Structure formats: C-alpha cells, structure tokens
C-alpha cells in the first residue's frame, strides 16, 4: 500500500518529481563522464610516457635508480639476456647504455643524455623509430651516426648530415670523444626528452666507452603489459640478489603520484558541485513535504505510524532516484564508451598537450564498468541521504499540529 501511495504522490507532485529526476540523471551522467575523462587523460599521459621511451619494465642493479652512474652498471649483460630468454612472458627486451655527455657543434655545447641502443630491437620497445621527423632511424651496423631529439638539434643548430662532437667519460673514466653525423631527428612531444636525448648504435658506443657487455639497464615488454607489476615481482624473485626488476609504476612513480593528486583535486572540485545538488534536492523534498503536511497529518490520523510516514517519504525519493540514477548511468556509460571509441579531437591544442606529455591531441575517456558502477552508487546514496532531514522535521510535528498546518 505504501508503495502504491508513494507512486501516486510522485505522479501528483510533477514539478518536484521532474526537478529531482532531471538533477539526479544529469548529475549521474556528468559524474560518470567526468571521471572517465580524468582517468582517460591520465591513462594517456602515462601510456605516452611509458611507450615513448621508458618502457613497461626495467631490470637494473640495485641502487641504479638512485645513482645512475658507472658504479651501478649491469656488468654482465649476456647473463641477463640469457635469463630473460628463459622467461616466456617476456615478449621483447633490449639493453640500453646511458651516459651523460657533451655534444658540441662550433660554438655551441650542450649537455645531453646519450643512449646506446640496439636499433632493431628498440623499435618494438619504444616509439623512437616512429617519432622520426627528418632523415632516417638508426640501424644495427651504424657507426658514427647519431639520432637527435628535435629540440636538442635546434639548440645545437644542426640538421641531418651535420657533424657534431661528443665528449664524455668512458668506463675507466678516461675521456671518450668522437665525431658523429646526424642521421635522423625525432620528435616525441615530451619536451625535456626531445631537448636532451640522443641515441647511437650501442655496439659502436660500447667501443668508445669501453662498455662492451655492459648495460645501464634492460627494458622489457611482456605478453600482457597490464600485468607488468606482477611480472616484475616474479622476475625480481628469480634474479640474482644484486638486480631488481621494476615496473613502470615504480619507474614513473612521480608521474603516477601526480596523477593521483590531480584525481584527488578533481574529486574535491566536483564534490562542491554535488553538495549543491544535494541541497537542491533536499530543499525541493523539504518544500514538497511541507506542502503536504495536512495530507500527512490526515494519514497519521487514519492510523499510519510515523515509521510508515518515514517509509512512504523514503520510498518516494527511492523510486525517483532509482529510475533517474539508472537512466543517468546508462546515458553516462554510453557516452563514455562512445568517447573512448571515438575520442574528441581538439585541433590546435596539440602543442599545449605535448607540454604535459600527451602526444595526441585527442582526449579519450576510460570506460571501466566497475568505476561506473561505483560512481552511480555514490550518487544514488548521496541523493537518498537528502531525504533524512525533511523526514526528521516532519515527524517532529504531532498529528494535530500537522492537521492544523497552513
């Protein structure tokens, strides 16, 4: 009986029903899309950082992350290669040797991170090859060829075919120097990376730096990169004690934390909006209930208890909220899924986005059923809780007070 009475009341109070219905539906849909956008942009930022160069996991000696110097090199790279070949879940891997050098052309000298890579293997582990904008990518038999970041090339005022001097320190700390010809120029969109990175064939760099069979670290790809964290834990257990395997979450911990802080601030900002919605629904419920005080008094006089009145009023909002939030969830989820498949492209914003490490100028959403369900549930509970105060107030009135209420 209380349910049918609740439905009757919902239909009778059209303006309240419509307002709460629209507010709840809009809030739910908006919240779902907002969170999906935030997660989507964070995911894209991390994906860009991981896939451009960092990679999904590294194997390095313990202490290398803190002090990336020659005292923390992998001294037997072949041993690590053999170890990795035996792991079926490691789909690709390659050693890198990174060193800090001076690159000089005429009067200009710039400090740069010079990396020795195996070009053929690297092309499937990073986006270095696809980031080529001029000249050509490195090859495994290259000798004096260097592949430069676009902003570094600009700083040195060099172009493809120009010669630059490299001065660094070899493993015995003697001076290592050579002349290289710019073979290609790349642009990833990661400003710092494009400004300070240069690559040469590892075999040749090893001959200059005396770093044969040495590596700063190995970069890895797994058959399922989403499981990088668990795979690195498995690797760490079977690696010699002086080595460690780190997933991208550990390698880019600062970026991951930045994303978490950004999400937190996003939630705080949007919660202000929800509090406003909460009070609007509460005020509408309050006004609506008080306009029906005499009706409620009559129901009490006819034998309904205050508990029945509580249930009646709660049921009214429960029905409206359930329908509106469900509809909002469907709309929000559909929009999220659509925008994940067909992301919005904001042309002209590419450069601005690149400053934040987002290589693409599209903003995809991240469709995740669990997040959508959780967000829908949050809005549902928030809306329902707005009825408690009006119920509390109305139940404080006695039957006669309610009957005489004007």
């Amino acid at each position: 009986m209380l349910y049918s009475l609740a439905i009757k009341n919902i239909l009778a109070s059209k303006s309240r029903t419509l307002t709460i219905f629209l507010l709840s539906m809009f809030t739910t849909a908006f919240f779902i899309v907002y969170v999906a956008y935030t997660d989507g942009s964070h995911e894209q930022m991390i994906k860009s950082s991981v896939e451009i160069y960092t990679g999904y996991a590294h194997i390095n000696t313990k202490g290398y992350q803190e002090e990336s110097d020659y005292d923390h090199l992998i001294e037997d790279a072949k041993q690590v290669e053999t170890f990795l070949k035996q792991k079926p879940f490691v789909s690709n891997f390659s050693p890198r040797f990174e060193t800090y050098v001076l690159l000089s052309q005429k009067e200009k000298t710039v400090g740069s991170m010079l990396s020795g890579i195996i070009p053929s293997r690297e092309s499937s582990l990073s986006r270095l090859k696809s980031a080529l904008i001029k000249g050509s990518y490195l090859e495994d038999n290259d000798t004096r060829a260097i592949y430069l970041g676009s902003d570094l090339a600009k700083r040195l005022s060099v172009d493809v075919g120009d010669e630059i001097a490299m001065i660094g320190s070899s493993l015995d700390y003697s001076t290592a120097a050579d002349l290289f010809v710019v073979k290609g120029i790349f642009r990833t969109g990661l400003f710092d990376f494009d400004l300070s990175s240069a690559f040469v064939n590892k075999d040749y760099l090893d001959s200059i730096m005396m770093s044969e069979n040495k590596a700063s670290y190995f970069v890895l790809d797994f058959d399922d990169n989403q499981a990088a964290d668990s795979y690195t834990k498995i690797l760490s257990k079977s690696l010699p004690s002086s080595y460690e395997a780190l997933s991208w979450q550990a390698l880019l911990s600062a970026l991951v934390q930045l994303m978490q802080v950004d999400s937190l601030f996003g939630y705080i900002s949007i919660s202000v909006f929800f509090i406003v919605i909460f009070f609007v629904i509460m005020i509408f419920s309050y006004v609506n209930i008080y306009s029906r005080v005499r009706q409620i008094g009559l129901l009490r006089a006819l034998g309904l208890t205050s508990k029945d009145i509580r249930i009646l009023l709660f049921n009214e909002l429960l029905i409206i909220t359930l329908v509106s939030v469900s509809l909002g969830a469907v709309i929000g989820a559909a929009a999220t899924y659509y925008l994940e498949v067909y992301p919005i492209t904001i042309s002209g914003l590419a450069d601005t986005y690149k400053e934040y490490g987002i290589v693409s100028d599209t903003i995809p959403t991240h469709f995740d059923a669990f997040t959508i369900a959780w967000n829908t549930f949050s809005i549902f509970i928030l809306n329902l809780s707005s009825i408690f105060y009006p119920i509390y107030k109305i139940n404080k009135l006695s039957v006669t007070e309610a009957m005489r209420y004007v």
Partner: protein
Amino acid sequence: MKYLLSFIFIFASSLYGSEADDIIKAVEDNLRGDFMYAKMSMVVTGGRGKRTVGMESWSQGDTKSFIKILYPKKDKGITFLKLDTQMWQYIPKIERTIKIPPSMMLQSWMGSDFTNDDMVKESSMIKDYNARLLSRSSTIATIELLPKSNAAVVWGKILVDVDLSNKVPTKEIYYDDQMQKVRIMTFSNVQRHGSHSLPMVMELKPLDIEKKKNSTKVIFEKVNYDTPIDASYFSKNALKRYSN
C-alpha cells in the same frame, strides 16, 4: 650591564670576522702567488678501480690557468683553459675545442671527485664567503665560511682548519645547503717553495655512502712560484698549440 655585554660581543664578533678574513686572505695569497707552474699527478680511486692522471699547470693570479694532461696515453694532450669563470677544453683526438657550459659545472672533472666548478672557482673563498673564526690556538685556526647572500656558490658552508705558521689549510669540510657534510679535503706534506708554502699532497674524499670507495689524491711533483708565465698560455689558441 647587558648593553655593555652586547657591545663587547658585537665588537668581539667583528674582530673575529676581520681576523678570519685576514687568515683566509693570507692562505689564498700564499697558495696562489702571482704566477705558478706545477707538475702533478692525480690518483683517482673509485668503484671501478684506480687510475693516475699526470698533468702540468700554469696559472696567473686567480683568474687564469692552463692545464695539460700528460698521461695516461688515452688522455695525453687534452688541455684546459680557465679564464675567470669560463672554461674550455681541447681534445686532440677529434681536434675540437669546446666550451664547458654552465650546466656541466657540477660534473666530474677528468673522472675525479673534483667538479668543473672546483677548477673554475677554486679561489673564491674570500670573495663569495663570509669568514668567521670559530677557534684558534697558537698553530691552528678553525674558520667557518658561509656564503654571502648574493654569491652563486655550490656549498652551504665550509669549515677550514688553517696551519697558521705555514699559511696553508690542513683540512676543509664541505657542507651542502642542507648543512650535511658532503666531502672532506685534507692537505699534508707542506714544503717551502721560495716565499710560498704548499701542501704537496691534497686528498679529497666524498662522504656520500654510495661513494665510500672514492677518493682523489693530488700529488705535486714540481712547483715553481717565482717565474713569470708567458701570456700565450692564457688564450684559446694555446689549447691546441700546447697540446703536443
């Protein structure tokens, strides 16, 4: 009474400041001289072993110096020129002269525990730091050097023990801007060269736990303070000209 005590304290502090400045200035004047030629070896010990670098240096005052590497064979002929706070390097293997950019000033010099900044700014104690006398006996004074507010320096504090009779430092402790000890430099085997005294052995030890095996020892083999040095050593042309 308390005003009198305050006055005495301020007066005493200024005296200590002035005396500390005088000691530091005397040390720098003694070590530098107007001209200095030295032949030395530098023993660099690190996690990857030990290596010895032989070199010659020519300097004029505190603004000009020229260094030539004599050995090992791989580094032979590399030259460095310092003019004021700028530094150039010539590498014979590629026949190129490069200017060390400011961003590289904190990088290691020739694989040692010295930085490029040490090579350029070795004489700025009196210009860039406020000196304060912490203690003094008849032979040794301990002086605290704190950077002046407008000084572009690397260290947060330097504590210097000075041998007053020879006007040479015996120990320098370097602190970072968090006031953590970063490295210790010790000086020994003081010898007289004309009107100057010089510790013939200097050893630098970084205190970073990751670099506990590291040390750099500079041993002076030949020193001449009193012969004027040809101005040709202090030009960019000298880098290539005196490389061989």
